[in-house]
């Protein structure tokens, strides 16, 4: 492919000049990944309402409906429709078919490959929570791949919210399984009381690092894929050349497929690790007694 070198250099220099002065096409690209107060649809842009922020206990909550809130809700509504339809279908017939079969396969996978190995039969009571986590994250991830869509999980606040729920569920399941006394005793790490002053802060820190890792992992994976796409498409705008555009376009298609995989994988990893952490807080003997019993 023959491209005049001088022209390309000039184009790149021009692009960099524009970018340095805060503007240009690239800035518009990155805008699509970020949260915003407007919803972009084909041929029209909807301005989303600003709500007055309020302050509780020194924290200011801005409950404005942003783009990511909208896609959080879209995912939630789609999930409700799919799950309820599947439930109705499966209640009607013996052998699941179509949508019911898809949801059924997902539930069976989560139950047999995630919940039972990590938490034992005792963990089956947390199936609704883990199913909601998995499917909601999966749908939010996938909406980032839909044209004009956005992935709410590419926003650290959304993943933080999910991680806070996971934190609560991990502690609650642990306390429920072994009682408050054993739960608190576990925080000492089972060492001599003289070491408690070191041990207790470490254990308490450990409680928070797990959900924190969940939050950052999901967010970073989702935003990472999008940033790669933005960078590849950005190359086209930097070079301003149709011939060079072919290569990034091909890469973008490949990365899109990778993102599709990552969307499923990260939803699985979030759910699997939550289930694992919940299982860690459950006494081991309940596991073995349940799984080896009968």
């Amino acid at each position, binding site marked *: 492919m023959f491209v005049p070198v001088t022209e390309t250099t000039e184009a790149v220099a021009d692009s960099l000049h524009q970018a340095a002065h805060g503007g240009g096409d690239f800035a518009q690209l990155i805008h699509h990944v970020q949260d915003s107060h407007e919803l972009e649809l084909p041929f029209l842009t909807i301005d989303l309402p600003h709500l007055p922020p309020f302050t509780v206990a020194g924290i200011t909550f801005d409950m404005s409906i942003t783009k990511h809130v909208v896609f959080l809700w879209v995912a939630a509504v789609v999930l409700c429709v799919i799950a309820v339809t599947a439930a109705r279908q*499966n209640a009607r017939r013996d052998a699941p078919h179509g949508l019911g079969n898809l949801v059924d396969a997902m539930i069976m996978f989560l139950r047999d490959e995630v919940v039972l190995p990590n938490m034992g039969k005792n963990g089956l009571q947390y199936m609704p929570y883990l199913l909601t986590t998995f499917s909601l994250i999966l749908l939010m991830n996938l909406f980032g791949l839909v044209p004009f869509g956005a992935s709410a999980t590419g926003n650290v606040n959304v993943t933080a919210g999910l991680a806070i729920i996971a934190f609560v569920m991990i502690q609650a399941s642990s306390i429920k399984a072994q009682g408050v006394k054993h739960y608190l005793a576990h925080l000492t790490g089972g060492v001599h009381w003289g070491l408690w002053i070191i041990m207790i802060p470490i254990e308490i820190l450990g409680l928070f690092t797990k959900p924190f890792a969940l939050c950052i992992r999901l967010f970073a994976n989702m935003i990472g894929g999008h940033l790669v796409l933005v960078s590849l498409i950005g190359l086209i705008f930097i070079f301003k050349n149709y011939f060079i555009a072919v290569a990034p376009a091909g890469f973008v298609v490949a990365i899109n497929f990778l993102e599709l995989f990552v969307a499923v994988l990260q939803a699985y990893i979030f759910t699997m690790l939550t289930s694992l952490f919940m299982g860690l807080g459950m006494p081991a003997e309940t596991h073995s007694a349940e799984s080896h019993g009968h």
Partner: protein
Amino acid sequence: MLELNPGLILWTIVTFVIVLMILRWTAWKPLLAAMAAREEKIRASLDQAEHARQQAEALLEQHRKQVAAAEDQAQRIIMEGRAMAERLKTEILEKAESARQHMILLAKEEIRREKDAALLQLRSEVADLAIGAAGKILDKNLDTPAQRSLADAAIREITKG
């Protein structure tokens, strides 16, 4: 992207909890229940099929045994029948043979007796005839030596037999 926005965190938590509450009762519980019911049904069906198979196998075995026993019995009956027939045949043949012999003997006896009786009767009748004839001849010309010898010869002839 990275700026903290407590409002969005709150929205996420609220949305998640609402979705969880809705789906817990309308979707996940029925789906899990349907799945458990289906698994139970499949297990029951498999158990039932296994049970039925075992039953059928036992039945087949029983039938096989019965058929074998029946065949045995049939074979034995045939053999017995054959032996009996053989025995009867020889018996009947023997009986018939002895009866024949007996009848032949009786017939011979009868024949002999009849012959003797007939001879006796004939003799007496011939004697009577001869005497009659002789009387008649005597009345006429008994003196003729030729006639005389003729009568003698006749009498002899008759008595001899």
